[in-house]
Structure formats: structure tokens, C-alpha cells
């Protein structure tokens, strides 16, 4: 793991940043993000990625931020190095990337209009033509049944709970029809949004893929349900804000059966997120709050509809 001194010297050498101080703002186990203050009064976020990530895919994703800015999306872009077109530097087996910092706080669910506007604006420009080569929701679901079998391996807590959702999970996969016109964000939870000067901005595009924009809407609805609960429990009283958010996104011209569709795409999101942990479940289960998070995904996968899911929180 690199030292702060290495980080400060490298940021100066490769990006010309003269640093006043560095603070850790996010720590997930041993992965960290930093907030950097510079002498010229600017602030930046430094994110680090393991070298096991594909640099080709990362480079495409970092370039995507700049494409979005050209299309009028408010976004914190990654800086390019002074000595090349690269965005990243390598520090002790990690890729470090410096992002412009967007000031503000996480929006609350009562700011559903601003959140809906943010997603609408993003989906309005994020066509699949913007990026030539990206994995799709359909491709992720195609491998999901095989990956699910990994949950059978070894001994770990909540094994039975996870295995119990197999039939529902298979049905969700079988019912998916190809709809991959949009570069969806893929993780539109409230934690990945910043309210800046009455406008909500998306951050953290690490999970972009081709899909249907309704997947992002459904993902935000899911975030509305459990946001603020350390145990990822559903807040039953939030149905009103959820419906208002959906109406706001679709400008009161919601497609037929919209709540049914939202619920289905919420399940699609939960399948993809659950499967992501299948190969290393024995180890990942030890991460803080992971058990509660996975149980929430299982609850959504097994739920019958949006209303029933909301009532489970009672």
C-alpha cells in the first residue's frame, strides 16, 4: 500500500498539483479514496483501483466522463497526466486516478424531482453509440445461472437463505428480453449522487454497461427503500416518495404497468449484484454489512411485487 508521501509527490509530478493536505474520505476494507486540497484552492478526489482491473476497460470508462461533459452533463472528470494522455498513475501495484471534486451532499429522498431530472438528463444522452465495446445486462444475466452454482461451495452463514432464491432468480433471468440501447450507470444509489447547487450529479461510473434506462430508475427506487438503514431494511413509509419519483422521471406519462416493470428491473439489478459475489462468497461475507446487504438482495429477488416488498418492512 503506497504512503501519503508517495501520493503527494506523484500528484505534483504527474498532474502539477501542489497539495496542502490529504484526507481519507472513503474506506472499504483496504481500498481507499482521498480528498485532496491544493494551494490554488481546488479540491480533487483520488480513487485507487487494483491492477487486476483491465486497463483497456478503465481507460474507456475514464474517457466516458469527458464525453458526458461535452454532451452537457455536470460531472467530475478524471484529470489527464501532464506527460501523456493517460489518466492514471501506478503506485505500488495500484492505479490511482484524480477526479475533479463536486461539492455538495448526498440528496435526500425528498429531492426526488432533482434526482429524476438528473437521471432523465443522463439517459437522454447516454446512447450505446457513445461507447463501442461494453458488457450488457443481457450478457451478465447469461452467465448468472452458472455463477449461481458457486453459492453451493463451502460453508458460510446465510448459505441456505441465498440458495432458497434459486428458482426466483432463474425465472427473472428467463424472463429478460434484450433491451440494450443505453449506457446505464449501473449503480444509481443515493450514495452515488451529489446535490450541487440544486442540481443532482452522478458520480462513480465504475459499473456502466449496456442496458435499459429503467434499470437505473429501478436501482434508485431500491436505494430509496433502504437508504439510511444500516441493516438494509425497507422503510415502508417511503412508498409515496417512490411513486412521486417514478412519476417525476416519466413526467406523469408512465408506461403501462410501470410499477410491475420497476419491480422486475429491481430484481434484475439484485440478481446481477448477488451473482457478483458468488465466486468469493466465503470470503466476502466477512466484509462489514455484507451479510445484511446480500439478504436484502435475496428478499427483493423473492418478492412478488413492489407493494408486497414495501410491506415487508412493517
Amino acid at each position: 500500500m503506497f504512503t501519503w508521501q508517495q501520493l503527494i509527490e506523484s500528484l505534483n509530478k504527474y498532474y502539477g498539483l501542489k497539495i496542502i493536505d490529504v484526507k481519507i474520505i472513503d474506506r472499504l476494507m483496504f481500498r481507499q479514496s482521498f480528498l485532496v486540497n491544493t494551494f490554488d484552492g481546488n479540491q480533487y478526489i483520488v480513487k485507487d483501483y487494483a491492477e487486476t482491473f483491465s486497463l483497456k476497460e478503465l481507460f474507456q470508462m475514464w474517457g466516458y466522463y469527458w464525453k458526458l461533459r461535452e454532451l452537457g452533463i455536470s460531472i467530475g472528470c478524471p484529470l489527464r497526466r501532464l506527460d501523456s494522455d493517460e489518466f492514471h498513475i501506478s503506485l505500488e501495484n495500484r492505479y490511482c486516478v484524480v477526479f475533479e471534486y463536486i461539492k455538495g451532499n448526498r440528496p435526500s429522498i425528498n429531492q426526488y424531482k432533482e434526482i429524476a431530472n438528473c437521471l432523465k438528463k443522463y439517459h437522454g444522452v447516454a446512447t450505446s453509440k457513445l461507447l463501442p465495446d461494453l458488457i450488457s445486462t443481457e450478457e451478465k444475466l447469461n452467465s448468472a445461472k452458472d455463477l449461481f452454482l458457486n453459492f453451493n461451495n463451502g460453508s458460510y452463514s446465510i448459505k441456505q437463505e441465498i440458495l432458497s432464491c434459486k428458482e426466483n432468480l432463474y425465472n427473472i433471468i428467463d424472463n429478460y428480453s434484450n433491451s440494450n440501447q443505453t449506457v446505464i450507470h449501473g449503480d444509481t444509489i443515493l450514495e452515488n449522487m451529489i446535490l450541487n447547487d440544486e442540481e443532482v450529479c452522478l458520480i462513480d461510473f465504475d459499473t456502466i454497461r449496456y442496458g435499459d434506462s429503467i434499470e437505473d430508475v429501478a436501482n434508485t427506487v431500491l436505494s430509496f427503500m433502504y437508504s439510511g438503514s444500516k441493516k438494509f431494511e425497507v422503510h415502508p413509509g417511503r412508498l409515496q416518495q417512490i411513486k412521486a419519483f417514478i412519476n417525476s422521471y416519466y413526467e406523469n406519462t408512465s408506461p403501462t404497468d410501470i410499477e410491475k416493470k420497476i419491480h422486475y428491473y429491481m430484481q434484475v439489478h439484485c440478481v446481477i449484484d448477488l451473482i457478483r459475489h458468488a465466486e468469493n462468497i466465503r470470503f466476502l461475507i466477512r466484509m462489514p454489512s455484507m451479510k445484511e446487504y446480500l439478504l436484502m438482495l435475496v428478499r427483493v429477488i423473492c418478492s412478488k411485487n413492489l407493494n408486497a416488498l414495501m410491506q415487508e418492512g412493517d
Partner: protein
Amino acid sequence: MSNAEEIVKIIEEVIGTKIHNYSINPFNHGLDSLGVLKLVTIVEDKLGIEIDDNDLTVENMSSVNSILSMVNKYANE
């Protein structure tokens, strides 16, 4: 094989590198968050111990020696 040799072998398997010096920082040789979880879970299985997640700190993982000290605390209980 002693406990220490067993643990070093597991670290080598997780990071995919031969360890010649116990003072190296495994994070600078490919260890990441998932690797730490793999490492401690496999060590627990091999030695029949249970390591408290609160001991999975940067300090306790900052060298092969510090990992050995942390694990030995449990192995000697």
C-alpha cells in the same frame, strides 16, 4: 511444517509471489481487500482458529511478520 511456514505458504498462494523477506508489505506485492479475506479464512481453516474481524487492520497486515504475530496470538490461545 510449522505454523509460520504454513501461513507464509498461504500468503504466497494468495499474492502469487514467493516471499524471501518477512518485512515486505504484502499490499505492495498484490494483496488487496479480497486477498486479506481469503488469507485469514484459509488460515483459520488450516489452523482451526477464529480471527476477530476487528484484527483485520492495515497495521496487522503491513508486513509478513505482523501477520504472523497477529495469527500467533490466536494460535497460542
